[in-house]
Every structure is written in structure tokens, then in C-alpha cells.
């Protein structure tokens, strides 16, 4: 057909092998920089004669902390549980609440402005209070982790569910579809990308919340561990704790990113990465 000849053919998705190859060729510079950074750290301790109680070598961190491996692993589990539970509960509560606020004019004029002003309060400031109310156990840490996750999720969910494009709104009106059908077929999928903005932000905050809550008062967890070993002049062990916290944060963020990729592969932020 003559009319079709003007159209370019759509590009095909590249094969898996080519994608992996491209990934490596794109990131080798970063990997080299990373390796260089740790090598510099390793050797500069001797070059600049830095005392071990100030900054240990990476190799020493690995060797020394491996003696404490079991405890570190258990504390990683504790802090991880606090962060993940806080995050999961926040998602379970904040998404339905955001949905309700987006669709209820009463809630939008009462709870919504309340949330916006509460968002300005640093949630971490509540940590000492919760610990004094609820003790040294896991619960106050889960609550703090929940609080730092809750607000970004709820505010993004309100935005997500409240803003279907004008065209799609009119399209659904012109089909005469029921509100439920419009919700399932248009609003819900269209809201997902904005919801994930909140989930990702919360995933980054969750470990931070749990760690700081542990700093303030606890008897286990990586935050507790870092505070104790720093007091004992063991920066090598503190760095091991920091490394595991980083790993924890990355894992949670990675899990959310993976979920995003599986649930909304069609979204631009996901497509760009592929």
C-alpha cells in the first residue's frame, strides 16, 4: 500500500546477549572507577600514615569483620526486618488511603492538608518519643520506618489517582463506562508510575529510618552495632556495618525497581533503562 510506505518500521527490542554486552560496555568505566577508589583507599592508609583507629584499610575491614560475621548477619536481618516491615505496612495503608483521599472531597479538604503540613515535620524527631513509649524492641523502629515511608507514598498516591489525563477522562465519559470499569481499566494502570515514585522514595528512606531509630535506643540491629563499635574505637567494624546497611538499602530499592519493571514495563522510566 502506498500509504504505508511513508511509515518507518518500529525498532525491534535488542536481543538478550546484545543487551548484556551493551550493559558491560556501558558500565566498565564505572566499575574501573569503583575498583580504583578502593585501591587508592587501601594504599593511601600507608602512604599518608593514617592511624588505624581513624580509618582502616578495606582489606582489614573484611578480615576483622569476618570474625564478627554471625552477629553482623543477624543484625542485618533485624534492621532489614524493621525497614521492610515499615515499608510494607506503609504501602498497605498509604495506597488505599491515597485512593480514598483522591476520590473524597471531604477527605481532600481535611486529611490532605493535614498530611501536607505533617510532611514538613521531620519524622525522625518522633523517634525518642516512640522509644520512651514503647521500649527498646522492634516495634518503635518499625513505626519510625513506617512513618518515613508513609508520607511519600500517600502524597504520591493522591497525585496518582487524582490525575487521569483530560483526554482519557473524556474518552471514558463518551463510552458511558461505569466508575468501576473506568477505575480498573484506566485509572489504576495510569496511576502506577506515580505510585512507584513514592515507593522508590520510601524504599530509600526505610533503612535510614530504622538505623536512626536504632541509634536512639536499642539493643540490636546494625544502627546499634555501629554506635557500639565506634564507641570502642573500632572503625573497621563500623565500616562493615555501614557496608551491610548500604547493601540492605540497595536490595530494598532494587526489589522495588524490579517490581516496577514487572508491573509497568510500558512506562517511559522503565523503557529508558532497557
Amino acid at each position, binding site marked *: *500500500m502506498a500509504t504505508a510506505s511513508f511509515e518507518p518500521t*518500529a525498532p525491534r527490542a535488542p536481543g538478550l546477549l546484545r543487551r548484556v554486552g551493551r550493559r558491560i560496555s556501558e558500565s566498565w568505566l564505572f566499575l574501573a572507577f569503583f575498583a580504583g577508589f578502593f585501591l587508592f583507599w587501601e594504599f593511601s592508609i600507608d602512604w599518608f600514615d593514617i592511624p588505624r583507629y581513624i580509618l582502616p584499610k578495606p582489606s582489614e575491614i573484611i578480615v576483622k569483620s569476618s570474625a564478627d560475621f554471625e552477629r553482623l548477619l543477624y543484625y542485618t536481618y533485624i534492621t532489614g526486618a524493621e525497614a521492610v516491615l515499615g515499608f510494607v505496612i506503609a504501602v498497605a495503608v498509604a495506597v488505599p488511603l491515597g485512593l480514598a483521599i483522591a476520590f473524597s472531597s471531604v477527605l481532600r479538604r481535611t486529611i490532605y492538608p493535614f498530611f501536607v503540613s505533617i510532611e514538613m515535620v521531620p519524622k525522625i524527631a518522633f523517634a525518642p518519643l516512640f522509644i520512651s513509649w514503647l521500649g527498646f524492641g522492634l516495634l518503635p523502629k518499625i513505626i519510625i520506618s513506617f512513618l518515613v515511608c508513609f508520607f511519600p507514598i500517600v502524597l504520591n498516591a493522591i497525585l496518582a489517582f487524582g490525575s487521569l489525563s483530560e483526554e482519557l477522562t473524556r474518552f471514558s465519559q463518551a463510552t458511558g463506562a461505569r466508575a468501576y470499569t473506568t477505575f480498573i481499566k484506566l485509572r489504576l494502570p495510569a496511576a502506577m508510575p506515580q505510585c512507584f515514585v513514592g515507593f522508590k522514595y520510601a524504599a530509600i528512606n526505610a533503612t535510614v529510618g530504622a538505623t536512626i531509630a536504632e541509634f536512639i535506643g536499642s539493643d540490636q540491629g546494625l544502627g546499634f552495632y555501629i554506635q557500639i563499635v565506634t564507641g570502642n574505637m573500632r572503625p573497621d567494624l563500623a565500616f562493615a556495618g555501614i557496608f551491610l546497611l548500604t547493601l540492605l538499602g540497595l536490595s530494598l530499592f532494587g526489589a522495588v525497581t524490579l517490581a516496577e519493571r514487572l508491573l509497568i514495563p*510500558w512506562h517511559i522510566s522503565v523503557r529508558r533503562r532497557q
Partner: protein
Amino acid sequence: MSVAIDIRAVSKSFGSGSETVHAFGPSDLFIDAGEFVSLLGPSGCGKSTLMLMIAGLLERTEGEIYFDDKLVDAPRTDIGIMFQDNTLVPWRDVRGNIELQLEMRGLSKHKHADRIDDLLRSVHLKDFERRKPFELSGGMQQRAAFCQALVHSPDTLLLDEPLGKLDAMTRDAIRRDLQGLWMRTRPTVVFVTHSIEEAVQLSTKVCLITPRPGRVDHVIDIDLPWPRDLDIKRSEAFNQYIGDIQEVFHGYGVL
């Protein structure tokens, strides 16, 4: 059966009090069943506003609009509608997007499978039915949106600058498809555009709308044979219409 659309003393204002913006009208317009009518005017003249009021998607400030004898007092669900930004959703492929129209209406997509195949073939998209909208060019997307707007066989088509964002060659190709489709089934079409050439090529009637606040000022019957292909577009009569319309807009201070 196609329907006639009767627009009586319709006007639209936005806001209230001293902040009122008078967007359109008052204007009368009668569109007979099976006509292809273009609303032609400069941007911001209220032609899209009029189209939304015809669709029942925007409330009128004054006047009445009738589909045959039925007053428009709610969104019309028996129409096919297209906007400048298409209503394809990125999470469905081309076929899924066409089926979306059926699903929203509670119609069976299996019973309409042949209809979807026919539509896809008529706009040369059959090989692309499993592609997502973002994998297609702008022209292909609008063709897919076109199938989406037509799949439930509406008697009335309201098209709000559906080709506005496309390049000239693609516009030409899709115009030809649109004309072929209209000639086959003769729905009543209201076509919003700011292209004089497009309006003259496609329409039985061209309504010239004045700059804001827009009013239907001239209604010009286009008496040219169908199909209006390249030969017609080169003809003296075709260019006479273009010249006449340009003169009117020149009078408005637009051209």
C-alpha cells in the same frame, strides 16, 4: 442511520462575574445526517469547545443542541471521538487499545474480532496489532486511535484536530483513508481543523469560525466531486475555495 445535529443559539463562557471569559457563540448550525462538516478557525477560537459541547462533554452556557430530536444533556455514548492527543494507553498493544473501547462499553471483543481485523487492514496496521503505541510513529498511532474511535460503529464522528501533530505527508495519507471511510459508510462527521486545505478537501460543508469569541460566521458548501484526490486538489475550483476562505480570514485579521 446517521443523525442530524442541530445547534441552536449555543454559547459558552468560562468563569463568572468580572472574570468571565466568553469562549464561543452564540451561534446556530445545522449539520445534516451523513454530512462531513469542518469547523475551521484560528487557534483559540472555540472550535474545540463547540465540539465538546456537541459531544455533551462540556456544558453549554446558553442554547440547545439536538441529535435528531434528542436534546444533548449528558455525554453522548453513541459517538466516536478523537482528540489531538490520542487516547491510546501505553500498557496495551494496538489491538488491546481498540478492544478497550469495547470493554469500556461492555461489548464482546470476540464478537467484534472480524470488525477489528477489517479496521486494522483498512488503515494498514494489521502487521502492527501486537505493537505498543510507543513503538509506532505518530501517524501510525493516530491510525490506531482512529480504529479505536470507530470499532463500535458509531453513526457520528467528532474529530478534534486528529492530524494536528503530524507531518504533511502523513496527514495527506491519513486524510485519504478518512475520506475513503466516510464515503463507504457515510457517518455524520464533525471535523475540527485549522488547515484550510484539509477542510476543503474533506468536507461537504466548511464552517468558518471567527477569532475569539468564536462565532460560526460563514458556512460554505464545497461542491466538488468525490473522491477528492490530487487532480481535484490541483483544479481551479478547489483553489478558488481556498482563495475565498483565505480572504475571509484575512478580513478577520488572522491571515
